[in-house]
């Protein structure tokens, strides 16, 4: 494509182009991860001071704590629930936009309508559930007024339900976009051929649409899983302090300057996250998918 094509020059040119990216990622991604890894082996005086050394004490503490298991179970519960809801809603919203909206400009307009909140503050979008879900919120008011309930429901806000609602509200977009992208690439002639050959609606879904949207589903899953597992803010605020996740416990640890325990827990979480994501990556070549 370009004048010079000998391999070493191509390597040099490639690295020159990505060098600014690398120059940011090394100090602000690689180095911090290494610092956290190092801190997990350090000892602490309990006041935020770190003593360089090598001890596995923090790992023993984290692994032997009954709390750890509870935190992971809670985190996995939130992750699975959020994943399932965002996948179902995201898949069918994308399906609707790609296959049912006949005017392409309208489809893009509706798609943008779905994406606009992504560019606004997550914190504000989460707080915005308070007037709806609160004890005196709109939903309770409506249910009381229609006589469905006599006492206001307290499980709506500051509960696990509220946490999942906030996650689904924020993260469905991460499913819609990649699934929409892979669905939009499905050749409509393929589906017409299937219809001509006598395939039912269900067959088309099962044999064409789902398999061909797999890479989008995988990408969306990576986003949703990594965000939910790395979140502490939604859990903290929407559960009213009643629930905790791995990272919210990490946040508390940092708050009381227990850096080594926090770091050990973060390293464990990172390993779990890496395992899950590599499992997903085995089903899809993400780079191929993105650059295609």
């Amino acid at each position, binding site marked *: 494509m370009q004048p010079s094509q000998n391999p070493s020059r191509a390597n040099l040119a490639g690295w020159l182009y*990505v060098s600014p990216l690398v120059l940011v990622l090394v100090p602000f991604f690689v180095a911090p991860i290494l610092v956290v890894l190092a*801190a997990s082996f350090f000892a602490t005086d309990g006041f935020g001071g770190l003593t360089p050394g090598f001890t596995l004490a923090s790992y023993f503490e984290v692994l032997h704590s009954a709390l750890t298991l509870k935190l992971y179970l809670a985190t996995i519960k939130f992750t699975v629930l959020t994943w399932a809801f965002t996948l179902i*809603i995201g898949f069918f919203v994308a399906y609707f936009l790609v296959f049912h909206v006949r005017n392409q400009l309208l489809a893009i307009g509706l798609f943008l*309508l779905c994406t606009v909140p992504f560019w606004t*503050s997550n914190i504000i979008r989460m707080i915005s559930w308070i007037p709806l879900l609160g004890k005196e919120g709109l939903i309770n008011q409506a249910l009381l007024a229609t006589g469905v309930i006599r006492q206001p429901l307290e499980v709506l806000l500051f509960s696990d339900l509220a946490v999942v609602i906030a996650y689904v509200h924020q993260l469905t977009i991460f499913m819609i976009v990649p699934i929409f992208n892979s669905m939009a690439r499905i050749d409509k002639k393929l589906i017409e051929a299937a219809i001509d050959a006598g395939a039912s609606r269900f067959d088309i879904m099962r044999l064409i649409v789902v398999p061909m949207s797999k890479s989008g589903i995988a990408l969306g899953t990576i986003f949703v899983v*990594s965000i939910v597992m790395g979140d502490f803010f939604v859990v903290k605020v929407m559960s009213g302090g009643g629930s905790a996740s791995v990272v919210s416990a990490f946040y508390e640890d940092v708050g009381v300057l227990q850096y080594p325990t926090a770091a050990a827990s973060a390293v464990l979480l990172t390993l779990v996250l890496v395992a899950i994501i590599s499992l997903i990556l085995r089903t899809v070549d993400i780079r191929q998918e993105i650059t295609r």
Partner: protein
Amino acid sequence: MSAVLADMPETESSKPVAPATTKAIAPSTGGRPWTFYVLATLFAAYVIALYGPMFCIYILSFQDIRGGLVFPMKGHSLHWFVDLFTQARTGDVKGSFDRSIKLAVIVTIITVVVSFLAGLGFRRRFRGDTFVFYMMIGSLVAPGLVLGLGTGLLFQALGLDAAWYTSALGAQLSWTLPFGVLVMFAVMSRFNHVWEEAAYDLGASRWQSIRLVMIPVLAPGLVAVALFGFTLSYDEFARSLQTAGSLNTLPLEIWSMTLNVTSPSLYALGTVTTIVSFIVIGASLGTIVLLQKKRGSRAKG
């Protein structure tokens, strides 16, 4: 989001009228299948759930001094907006707002330039490209709070002061750059290499072909990258928490308000920051459409 933004040229210029018949999954007998109505209802419900709560707090922020956190609405006034910027107990909203905007502008500029260059680099394979790619994905999926803590500790260990324009800037770039590069991938995959080759055939240097061919052609995509850079930085919270130093950015201010302010001031702040977001989104999308229009008319005439 990115791919669709980048898709807009084709739909607008080369396909003025989208053929309706090939879109529908059912044979084009004219009527809609029952699934259309079910999914249309689902879609409408989703959009209402997406925007409904946000509009609730915008409306509630315009209450008067008696206002509370829930409906019904008590009076109408701008009391809570004035309160927001004048009361000391709500913290330094003005200052943090100012810092957030400045930081977002710096992040946007760096994100656009670095993502564009990386996008150029990733077009061809080079030794180690997969490593750089996965480093970027890692930076994207890593828990923000953990990265922020690592950055904070690193600065501490090096004896540097954490500040919004140093450590928080870097921490935010570790979040905006992967998004920017992913958007560039989508944009680049639609770039026709023939144009670039033509430029070389006509004797253009590498820099000339970038400046005179690639940047103008890719301009709408670069605006999309800028949109990501600005909004992701402006709303970034987890990575800034341990890295912003003593002076807060706006999301950090909102976070501390959620913990100790229980008045509609909080909603007023939500309304103000969302207005800023909407202005940025509107300006970006408007610019993209304008660029496409200009290009469309030039191509035709």
